[in-house]
């Protein structure tokens, strides 16, 4: 089978690319291992909602138009939104089709699937940023009798064994899971490493309203000082709830969650934690302070001060004098460890020399290096800070399809449909 462009993945990113390709008259096919929005249906815990308020949830050609602009979509609502988008885009779609490999072939690429081989001049990888949980090597030394759970296995607190839970990682996933597991009567100890603290509401507006309005989320990948670091930052400690609550470490401490430093490893059934908890919290407090300073300066300079509430500053993260450095799992009734230690994209099926010495895909804002016509979309801070969020897909899809159109137009004169 031949086409100009193969798009791998029919989530919001793949559909957005299809929308932009169709608008440019590029012949293409979208290949999806499951059905539309597969990951959102199958790999998310039950209570999860988007971190982004509804009014900001938009993709090229479709924006939220419901009656709760300040709310946050549940996973069922996200799936419904993406299904609606799929009907609008009406892409040439092959669902239930798993891509087995992507190799160089002919004038461009060969995409081998379990239902046939596609030959194409260009390909767009839109298969998600969170395909595999990142679990530290220390997990191998977890003592027997303790369940090891990743956020991709995790569904709801009641599915965990009764007893204590060690949650490792204080990202959005970590704090959200810690909160609901603790409230289920399973006492939580939270191992805190580097994290990003943000208030849900600042000066009466959602923090993402500020990120959007100030242009902070539009900062481009090639303007960011340390892009490797920016792409690795844990997701901000945010939760989308109808009450628009702020879920930070102080809120968890108030709920009874015990904070400890970063997990160092396990030794003889005892978890060991680094002694840098205070430093990790101070760094996050200071960084939040700098963000709020930036927002306040912007508000003053742009005449927004009168539209919003006065500036606020928040209590520093409370850390006990000498946080515990060890935790005997059996003696403390810890039955489960949850690894909220991040996710990574699965590129193992891409059989091309496009990876660096650490196995990371080499790309310049989604334009894959050393593989003309190959693109990646839907990764953290791919082209802008907002690339990590659903609404960031619009600019990224337009930029990358413009690049793709120029490439297939120049290199493949007959390829335009």
């Amino acid at each position, binding site marked *: 089978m031949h086409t100009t462009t193969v798009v791998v993945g029919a989530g919001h990113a793949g559909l957005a690319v299809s929308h932009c390709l169709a608008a440019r008259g590029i012949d293409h096919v979208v290949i999806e291992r499951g059905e539309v929005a597969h990951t959102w249906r199958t790999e998310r815990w039950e209570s999860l909602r988007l971190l982004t308020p509804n009014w900001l949830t938009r993709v090229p050609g479709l924006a939220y138009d419901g009656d709760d602009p300040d709310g946050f979509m549940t996973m069922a609502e996200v799936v419904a939104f993406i299904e609606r988008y799929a009907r609008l885009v009406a892409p040439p779609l092959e669902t239930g089709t798993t891509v087995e490999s992507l190799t160089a072939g002919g004038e461009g690429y060969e995409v081998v699937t379990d239902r046939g081989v596609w030959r194409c001049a260009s390909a767009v990888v839109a298969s998600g940023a969170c395909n595999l949980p990142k679990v530290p090597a220390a997990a191998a030394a977890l003592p027997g009798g303790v369940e090891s759970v990743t956020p991709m296995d995790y569904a709801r607190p009641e599915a965990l064994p009764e007893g204590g839970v060690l949650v490792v990682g204080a990202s959005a996933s970590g704090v959200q899971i810690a909160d609901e597991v603790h409230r289920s009567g399973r006492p939580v100890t939270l191992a805190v490493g580097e994290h990003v603290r943000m208030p849900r509401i600042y000066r009466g507006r959602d923090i993402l309203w500020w990120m959007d309005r100030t242009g902070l989320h539009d900062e481009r990948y090639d303007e960011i000082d340390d892009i490797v670091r920016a792409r690795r930052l844990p997701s901000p400690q945010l939760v989308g709830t109808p009450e628009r609550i702020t879920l930070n470490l102080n809120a968890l401490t108030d709920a009874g969650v015990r904070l400890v*430093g970063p997990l160092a490893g396990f030794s003889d059934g005892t978890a060991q934690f*680094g002694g840098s908890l*205070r*430093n990790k919290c101070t760094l996050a407090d200071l960084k939040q302070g700098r963000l709020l300073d930036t927002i306040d300066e912007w508000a003053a300079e742009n005449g927004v001060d009168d539209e919003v509430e006065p500036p606020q500053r928040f209590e520093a993260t409370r850390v006990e004098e000498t946080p515990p450095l060890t935790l005997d799992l059996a003696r403390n009734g810890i039955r489960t460890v949850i690894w909220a230690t991040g996710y990574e994209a699965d590129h193992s099926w891409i059989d091309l020399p496009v990876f660096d010495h650490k196995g990371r895909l080499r790309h310049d804002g989604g334009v894959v290096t050393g593989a003309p016509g190959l693109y990646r979309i839907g990764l953290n801070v791919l082209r802008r800070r907002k690339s990590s969020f659903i609404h960031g897909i619009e600019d990224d899809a337009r930029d990358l399809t413009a690049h793709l159109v120029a490439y297939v137009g120049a290199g493949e004169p007959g390829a335009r449909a």
Partner: protein
Amino acid sequence: MSDTSATPGLNGVNVEHLLGARNALGETPEAGLFKWRVTNQWLHGTHSASSVEGYFGLGGEHDHKATYKFESDHPLVFAAEDNAATPVEIVLVGLASCLTAGVAAVAQVREIQLRSVTATVEGDMDIAGILGADPDIRNGFSNVRVTYDIDADASPEDIQALVAQSQKRSAVFDILTNPVNVSVEVS
């Protein structure tokens, strides 16, 4: 270990006194709480000077016999002036000094005469960590190796046991191999 005049024989460690102190702590455990102190002053570039004057222990303040001074800097390959040892080398000095003191003390208890004890210490570090070039690489040592060359009136097994026991009771070995809470504040 040249000064053996104050203590009986062997390696010159006053073990009686140390064992007496351990027994005394059974009665007054708070006497065992020590605070070790260093002050450090920036000089220029990466060069700084530390001094050690006194410490708290056995329920009171104590002065060292003299004020001990330590300087530290970074090497020429870091485009620094190399006025003194690098801080990480001073950490290795601490480890070696602690382990060697332990070897001598344990040998004394076991009535093993030491003739010479030499430790060589090497710490592996990838500076991609401290330069922020690769977030997967830690700042500190990835591995530390200590090699002892010991001449003593004892079997190779007994010498192995000396070195093993020294690690078991070493403060610096513990500090390097286990987490510790460190708080850094600005006054």
